[in-house]
Every structure is written in C-alpha cells, then in structure tokens.
C-alpha cells in the first residue's frame, strides 16, 4: 500500500523505538531503539539475542499488541496498527497456553472461526493441521493435559490455521525435548519449501543456524549485526571437503596435491568428523514424542 515498500517485502520495520513507562514514577525503559530491518517474502528470518534485548517487544509491535513509541512496522505493506494487517499472519507466542477446557480440535476450530473460516473448509484445514503437527491421536483430548511439546505444536497448528503468508514464531523450540524440537524445525523447513515467510526468534543459536536464510542479532534494543546467514558465518578463506569411504591412498594423494599445487594453501584439519550429540540422541531414541509415556 505504501509506496516505499517493494512488493517482495513481507515485513518492514522502520526506525522503531519503544519506550515503556514503568511503575508509579513512570520511569522510562527503552526496550527497542531505532530499529530497522526488512524481511523479504519467502525467506526465514532469525531474530536472535539475549533475553530482554527487545526481540519479543518487536514481535508484539509487528502484531499490533503493543504500540510503537516512534517509527512504524508494516506487514505486507499494511501498518501493524490496522487489524487488517493480521489477515495473513500466524503467531506462536512464547510458552503458549490455550483454553484448557477445549480439545486440540476445538482449539483449532475456535481460532479458525476467528479468521472467518467455516464449514468444510475449516474442518479440512483443521484436520490437515492436526496431521501436519502430529496431533491427530490427541485431537479430542483437553489441551489442559498436554505436554510442553504438544502445546508448542498445537500453537503452531493454530498459527497456521488460516494458511498465513507470514509466520511469526517466538522461541518455538524453548523447553521442548530434542525430538519435538527437531520436528518443529522440520516443519519450519517444510513451510519454507511451500513459500511461507517466517520470522523466528530463539536463543538456541544452532537451531537458528539450521533453518534461517537471514539473521539479525539484537542487543539492548538495537540491531548489532544483520545479514545473510552464509555471509555472516562462513569463514571466507576456508573450504571443507567431507569424503565417505576414502582409502588411505586417496587421502595421501590429496595431501600430495595440496602440497604440490600452491605454496599458499595449508591443510588445516583432516580427520573423522564428529556426530553431534543431538544426532546421536535422535538416532538412539525410539519414542516419537507423539505419545505420552504410558
């Protein structure tokens, strides 16, 4: 809608400042200071930073839950203060809770109706989301009895119920076991495949690294580093080769090639790569995380 926004921009944050007035004395607390960034359509943007750096506040402003003191945020060109800007957004808050008296299916129907969905469209979409998040078997159970990981997944399902073009996830894997966490990351990647734009915060940097295209690092309410993940973390002058079933002779030849080829090239390391503890965990556990232990 606004001319300064290109059609490929999903989220734009411009010169955003948020000052909270706290307590009776109205002491000012600057949560976000002159923050600007853009999220392009179809990319996964990771907003990372220590607790209290302003990530959550920024998200709340993007969703119109909190008003900006200065500057503005827009979603697909619509100012966040307009309710209509939330038409194409799904939001998963940190540690979500839902109405305890509803089952997972009822919860999805509730949120679906709030997005003006109805009838068989809503029904089909809710079933699809239950399947996608692996909650079909628990769909009729009260959400009040759900485990942390299941709550996170029903949270994701409700965020996705209206097939949003933008998904905002606040700490989606916090407090979830590695299997559940893996599942959520897989879901994010799958949604990315389908063309969704995703903004995700986390302080588990390794997980962010796995899914994000773009990363912004916040500290004290300001953006301290921002850019493509590749650019930010690749060590510019190194190359990694990983081989499978390589014979010692081949390795010797490679070593020889390096020494012969160029005076400048140095072999930094050669050895067996280690698996991560996470991979080991995932391979060793059979429990899927879908069921509660009986």
């Amino acid at each position, binding site marked *: 809608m606004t001319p300064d926004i290109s059609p490929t921009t999903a989220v734009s944050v411009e010169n955003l400042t948020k000052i*909270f007035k706290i307590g009776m004395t109205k002491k000012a607390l600057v949560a976000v200071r002159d923050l600007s960034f853009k999220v392009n359509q179809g990319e996964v943007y990771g907003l990372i930073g220590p607790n209290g750096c302003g990530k959550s506040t920024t998200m*709340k402003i993007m*969703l*119109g*839950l*909190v*008003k900006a003191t200065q500057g503005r945020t827009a979603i697909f060109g619509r100012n966040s203060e307009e*309710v*209509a800007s*939330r*038409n*194409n*957004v*799904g*939001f998963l*808050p*940190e*540690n*979500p*809770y*839902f*109405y*305890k*008296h*509803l089952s997972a299916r009822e919860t999805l129907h*509730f*949120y679906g*109706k*709030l*997005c*003006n*969905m*109805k009838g068989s*469209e809503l029904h089909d*979409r809710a079933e699809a989301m239950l399947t996608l998040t692996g909650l079909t078997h628990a769909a009729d159970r009260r959400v009040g009895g759900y485990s942390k990981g299941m709550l996170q997944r029903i*949270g994701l399902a*409700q*965020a996705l119920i*209206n*097939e*949003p*073009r933008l998904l*905002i996830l606040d700490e989606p894997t916090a407090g979830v076991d590695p299997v559940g966490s893996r599942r959520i990351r897989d879901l994010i990647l799958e949604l990315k495949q389908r063309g969704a734009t995703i903004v995700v915060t986390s302080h588990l940097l390794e997980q962010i690294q796995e899914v994000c295209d773009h990363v912004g690092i916040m500290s004290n309410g300001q953006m301290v580093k921002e850019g493509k993940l590749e650019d930010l973390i690749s060590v510019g002058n190194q190359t990694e080769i990983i081989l499978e079933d390589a014979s010692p002779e081949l390795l010797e030849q490679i070593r020889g090639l390096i020494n012969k080829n160029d005076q400048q090239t140095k072999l930094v390391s050669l050895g067996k790569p280690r698996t991560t503890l996470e991979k080991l965990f995932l391979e060793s556990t059979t429990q899927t995380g879908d069921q509660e232990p009986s």
Partner: protein
Amino acid sequence: MTESITTQKYKAFSVIRIWTLAANTVTQLLRMRILAFLTVFSLIAIAAGFSFPTMSPEQQLKLLKDVSFGSLQIFSIVIAIAATSILIPKDLEDRTLYTILSKPVPRYEYLIGKLLGVLLLIGGGLLIMDLILSAVIWIKQSLIITGQIAALKQEQSATPENVAAIKMIIGKYGLTWGVHAGVFAVFLKASVIAALSLLISSFASSTLFTIVVAFAFTIIGHGQQLLRDWFLHDTLSSGFGKIISGLVVIICPDLKLFDVVDKVITGEIISAVTLASMGGMATLYIVGYTATAYLFFVDKEL
C-alpha cells in the same frame, strides 16, 4: 465462498467472530462450575416454598417469591461482577489474548464477545431459575387453593363465587406473567452491572480491584436516583459536593430503574411498553460502558 483464504477480504465487524468468542466464554465459565448455584437456588426456592405453613396463604406465596427473587438477584449480580472481572486478566495471564488478538480480531469484537458470553450465561441461568421458580410457585399455589376450597366445603360455603374469589386473590400472589417480567428486569440489571465491570477491568490492574470497585458502583447505582434528584433540584448548595455528585450521577447507572421485583411479587402488572423502555435504558448503559471500555482497552499494552 470459493475464494481462497489468503485473499479473503477483511471484515471490520463480524458477527461470527463475536459469536465464536461469546460461545467460548460461555463454555469457559460453565467449566468453572459457575452454575452450581442453580442447585443451591432450587433448594432455597423449595425450602422457602414449603416452610412456614402456619402463615396466611398470601404471605406464604410472597415469602417464597421474596426469598427466590432475592437469591436470583444475588446470583445474577455476583456472577455479573465476578465472571466479567476474571475473564480479561485470565486471558492476559495465560497469553491466550496474544493468540486471539494476533488473528484479525479487532479489540472491540473481543470485548463484545466476552460481554455477550457473560450475558448469555446469566440469561441462560436466569431462564432455568425462572422455570424452577414458576414450577414451585405453581405447585404451592395449587396446594393452597385446593386446601382453601376444601376448607370452604367443610364450612359448606364453597359457592362458585367464593371459589372464584379465592382463586383470584391467591392467583394475584401466585404465578403471573409479572414473575417472568421480574426475572427479565433482574437480567437487565445484571447486564448493566456486567458491562460496568467490563469497563473497570479494561483499565484495572488486578481482579480484586475490579470486583471491589464494581460492587461499590453497584451499591451507589442503587442510590443514584436519590442523588440525581438532589443534584437536579437542589439549587441552594454548590461547590465541591455538587461537582462530585454530578460526576457520580453521570457515571453511575440508575439501577433502581430495574427494581420492579418488589411490585411484581405482589402481582402488580408491568406493561410490555414499560419493559421495553427498561430494556432500552439498559441497552443505552451497556453501549455506553462498552464503548468506554473500548477506549481504555484499545490502547492497552499487552
């Protein structure tokens, strides 16, 4: 609707969304076992109906209605205040409010939905209590009439004239349409109080504060009429007291306007027109308080 969801046009006011929120509020409150009061009410009505058999028939019926209407009013006011005060802070605390308002739901729809849910619950509860009360009155009344006719027969004076007179007198104190009109008036009063509580909870920082202030306003609201008469007709005094009373008169609802229960109990007739104007007044209050609540809530930082 064959439009895909993503391109669906946004509606600024959606009855479906409000209804969804209201229905959810009703189930939420029901699961809090809020209607257990209905059982208590039935016991009270039955106890009041069948105690004190030595009093005069009219007094027995009047007492039954007094006690039942008393508990009806207490039930509706307590639920109106308590339920309404709990709802918003609970959603905020559980962060369900974030997920709801991050959907395309305007904040006024959220408020209206919550209020409507409380009103539906109170309305439903009162309807059930009306049925219970009507049944008890009717049984009591029939028993009294049968007893009196039997007594007349014993005195050999059961002329049709006398029997009709007894039926008329007892009937006036028994089950009349006025009973339902009275229950409706109780509902209107409770609705106004619920809207007032919603307004208070839209800016209050704690549930307890909301409940205490709402109760205070409920009591003041019953005296608003006195204060208003004084404010409008007393021309002698001026200054601070006048300003304060003027403020109270403007802010407070006149809850006495819905106190027709006293007269209903003794069989007075309320016309449909009067009931309708009472309904109109209640609507005016509810719209006013909800609109003010919106002004507070729209800028609330969540």
